[in-house]
């Protein structure tokens, strides 16, 4: 069966737009870490903040990030999304604040082998959810 030549660019455009739309909407959490012990009172009203973090771009960085933030008192849940370089943090506002969390993210990491202090992550954008 013969077809018009423009069937090809049309198929290209349709598949591409569909893939682009799907890629924009679908967002898998690379890491989800829930610190159950962080919530003592079940009636506590938790808040969520989303940070865009420079260098949060892969699984390894995601691990380092969640490990670093799990040490912050008041942080209840950490979710990382590498495609958008973002992290969603749920926290107890009575114990910590977005500023304190951002401070911890920006703080250089100590390398025990070399004794160096390395700046790994830095917050680019903060958004309350």
């Amino acid at each position, binding site marked *: *069966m*013969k*077809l*018009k*030549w*423009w*069937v*090809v*660019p049309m*198929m*290209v455009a349709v*598949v*591409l737009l*569909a*893939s682009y739309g*799907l*890629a924009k909407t*679908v*967002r*898998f959490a*690379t890491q989800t870490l829930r610190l159950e012990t962080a919530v003592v009172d079940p009636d506590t009203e938790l808040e969520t903040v989303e940070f*865009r973090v*420079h260098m949060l*771009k*892969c*699984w*390894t960085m995601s691990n380092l990030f969640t490990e670093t933030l799990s040490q912050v008192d008041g942080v209840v849940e950490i979710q990382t999304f*590498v*495609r*958008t*370089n*973002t992290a969603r943090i749920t926290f107890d506002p009575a114990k910590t604040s977005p500023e304190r969390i951002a401070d911890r993210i920006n703080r250089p990491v100590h390398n025990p082998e070399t004794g160096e202090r390395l700046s790994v992550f830095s917050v*680019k954008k903060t958004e309350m959810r």
Partner: protein
Amino acid sequence: MRLARTLFQAGFVIGMIAVGLRWTFGGHALTCETYCPFGGLETAYSLLTQRRFTCSTSEASFIFFLGMMGLTLLAKKSFCSWICPLGALLEWIGRLGGRVRWVWEPPKRVDRALRYLRYVVLFAILYFTYTVGDLVFRTYDPYYILYSFGNEAVVWWSWMVLAAVLLSALYIRMAWCRYLCLLGAAFDLFSWTGLVKPIVDSHACTSCGLCEKACPQAIPIVGRTKIRARDCTNCLECLAVCPKHDAISMGV
């Protein structure tokens, strides 16, 4: 049809330059890697077995890979001639080579043998990516070197690789795509069964051979009724140069 394709290609080249600039100077999260379907193939193994992405890949690259596989099933390797921003550059350089008469076509036997080289490279790169867990090919990947504007994985000899790939297009049309492109090799599996392809009306065809000369992939066309070749990218060049109206058309 040539204008339509050039517009598509130019759009993707400009778009990818914009993505690279935005990432390099504006610190934007999206990079040229976000849109690379090959990253999707590289991360497929770790995603399916460990539910995690290989470094620098994300759900976006995996979705683009699946989408482009679907496109290949529908319209052969149209991705290569309509979307790929590296293929577009190589094609334009090849045209320049043709104008100054530098283009040389390897003997058919050598050409056929060299086309298998990309499968060897594909399996080697996938094996190392899966075992190391990082995108080991980045340093040599001309697409990444070019559109990341010299990111951290790019070293001095990466630029030599890029120069060699670009220069090769001046002498052998689409040399990179024909002999070494890993994504093209991955698409080959599905390209055989591509639904929409060029079809030749043997009664109208005069066997002038203009279509074969114009084909950027140097695919034999004369004497065939359906172009099933895995390398066909549905670029429509054969349709554009055919002097007999309707001797070549698209079909299923």
